[in-house]
């Protein structure tokens, strides 16, 4: 048995039963990560000997359990990849930026802390567009990540490192973050599962802020069940994040049992998402995937989300506005890069000018403009009002359907360098993932085929606010009768 072939859930079972030991599992992933990283550049940092020592301890805990001792945490001995925007105490956290190149967080993000408390081990920190701003990881100050299916192409972004790591079997599972599609889009490009929970489902404490009304911690995984497993452990209220929902976390994995049966599930197909700009292969494969859901008993109907066309301009006002405020903290005083200057003003401006990359500066400029005196009402105010309409579109739709199905992106992974000089073309990447982000509803990206070039295509399912249970149930059912998620790139 090759431990790299196991899903997360299978690895957990094998560790418990003693047919696999954590030392072997961690060693297998670590050497694969080390071996492939020069080619894929999924990781910014890979754990050293300390993770092997932790794996040995995990093996002792499972051995004690099999002798009649206590059940250790459910993730005991499982290696995890963490996007480098989530703080892990003592591990460098760069956000893909020169301005945080030497930053060592003094505390651990709540979702990561919960995974560690469940026994999970940190295998490494994954590459990201600088401060999660981008759709290709080309904005990382430390070099882009390459798509494991075709290394001349981008893996998507901003969680491109996490998606590529899972696709290339360099990690069994990874955390990502999704502000406007940064988990779902790279998942689609890399042929893995990408789960963005509802806004507020998972604590953001220790996630370095980008767009605070949009940021969500999500999961890149091989199977829906694996993603559900991790979500179950991470989710739930956290007193350190007042935007985390004080609601019970359902046992997500429990509803993923028995026969895949979708009778009684109503699936909406938004006509605005299937427009002329969609690559024909993507259109066909997503419609075929919806056909699979129908075969499982789901009822489908065309729906309308009339304000879809405004999601992109709303997002590219709201998110940069929030970013411009959030990134004010990088001023060379308390942490990060400092560029000395004649006076304090000089120090601030020089540090920020030198430490931020082009896209981050562009968004800070855009956000500053949208919030500035005289333009606030026309841009930020108006965008937040139109956002209300976008949110209402979803609320209306979910009165008649349980799930909304669409493509994740209009096309498959593009070539590196193709869109770097055209910000608007890059922003168009997020066209179909932005609406759910603005509405705060959960979404999942599932591999549903490959285009004529062999590149993965993603099916996006969205559910109502806090409706992850049904979302996961539908995604899991799809994977019970399809094989796309079992395919791996040859490397």
């Amino acid at each position: 048995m090759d431990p790299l072939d196991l899903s997360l859930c299978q690895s957990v079972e094998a560790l418990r039963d003693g047919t696999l030991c954590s030392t072997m599992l961690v060693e297998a992933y670590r050497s694969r990560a080390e071996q492939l990283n020069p080619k894929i550049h999924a990781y910014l940092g890979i754990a050293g000997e300390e993770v092997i020592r932790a794996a040995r301890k995990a093996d002792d805990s499972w051995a004690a359990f099999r002798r009649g001792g206590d059940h250790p945490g459910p993730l005991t001995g499982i290696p995890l990849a963490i996007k480098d925007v989530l703080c892990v105490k003592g591990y460098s956290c760069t956000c893909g930026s020169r301005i945080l190149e030497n930053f060592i967080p003094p505390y651990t993000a709540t979702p990561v802390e919960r995974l560690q408390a469940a026994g999970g081990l940190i295998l490494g920190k994954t590459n990201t567009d600088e401060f999660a701003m981008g759709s290709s990881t080309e904005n990382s100050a430390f070099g882009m990540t390459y798509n494991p299916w075709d290394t001349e192409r981008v893996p998507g972004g901003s969680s491109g490192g996490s998606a590529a790591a899972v696709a290339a079997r360099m990690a069994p599972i990874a955390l990502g973050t999704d502000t406007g599609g940064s988990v779902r889009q790279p998942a689609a490009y890399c042929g893995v599962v990408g789960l963005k929970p509802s806004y507020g489902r998972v604590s953001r404490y220790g996630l370095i802020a980008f767009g605070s009304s949009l940021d969500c911690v999500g999961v890149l995984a091989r199977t829906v069940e694996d993603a559900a497993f991790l979500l179950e452990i991470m989710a739930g209220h956290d007193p350190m994040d007042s935007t985390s929902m004080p609601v019970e976390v359902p046992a997500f994995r429990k509803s993923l049992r028995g026969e895949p049966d979708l009778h009684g599930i109503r699936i909406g197909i938004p006509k605005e998402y299937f427009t002329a700009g969609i690559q024909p292969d993507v259109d066909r494969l997503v419609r075929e995937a919806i056909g699979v859901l129908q075969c499982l008993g789901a009822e489908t109907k065309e729906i309308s989300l009339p304000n879809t066309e405004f999601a992109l301009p709303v997002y590219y006002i709201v998110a940069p506005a929030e970013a411009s405020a959030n990134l004010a903290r990088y001023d060379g005083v308390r942490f990060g890069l400092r560029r000395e200057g004649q006076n304090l003003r000089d120090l601030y401006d020089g540090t920020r000018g030198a430490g931020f990359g082009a896209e981050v500066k562009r968004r800070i400029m855009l956000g500053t403009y949208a919030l500035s005196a005289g333009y606030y009402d026309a841009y930020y105010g108006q965008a937040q009002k139109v956002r209300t309409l976008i949110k209402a579109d979803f609320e209306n739709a979910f009165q008649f359907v349980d799930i909304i199905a669409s493509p994740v992106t209009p096309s498959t992974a593009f070539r590196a360098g193709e869109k770097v000089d055209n910000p608007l073309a890059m922003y168009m990447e997020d066209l179909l993932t932005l609406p759910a982000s603005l509405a705060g509803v959960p979404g999942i990206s599932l591999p549903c085929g490959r285009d004529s070039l062999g590149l993965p295509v993603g099916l996006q399912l969205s559910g109502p606010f806090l409706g992850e249970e049904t979302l996961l149930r539908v995604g899991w059912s799809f994977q019970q009768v399809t094989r796309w998620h079992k395919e791996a790139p040859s490397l």
Partner: protein
Amino acid sequence: MPLTHKEVEHIALLAHLQLGEQELEKYRQQLTDILDYADRLLRVDTSAISPTTTVLPLRSIQRTDDITKSLDRNDALANAPEQAKHMFRIPPVFE
């Protein structure tokens, strides 16, 4: 309407970003394009619509004002580019 060089300079000043002449010109063009695109929002009649402040059904989160353990001072200072006497050190603000 295209942004002027002066406007872009002013935004950079507000944003505390030191930018070179070439950067300013590039952003002038790119921000003009992006804002032109965003202008389609002005077509939407929002006279009767409230802005979204949060997507959550939560309002005014409060907690009791308990004293709890917070970040250790040395840990908080550990990433500082410069520190003195347990404080962050910066160049003088007043001469």
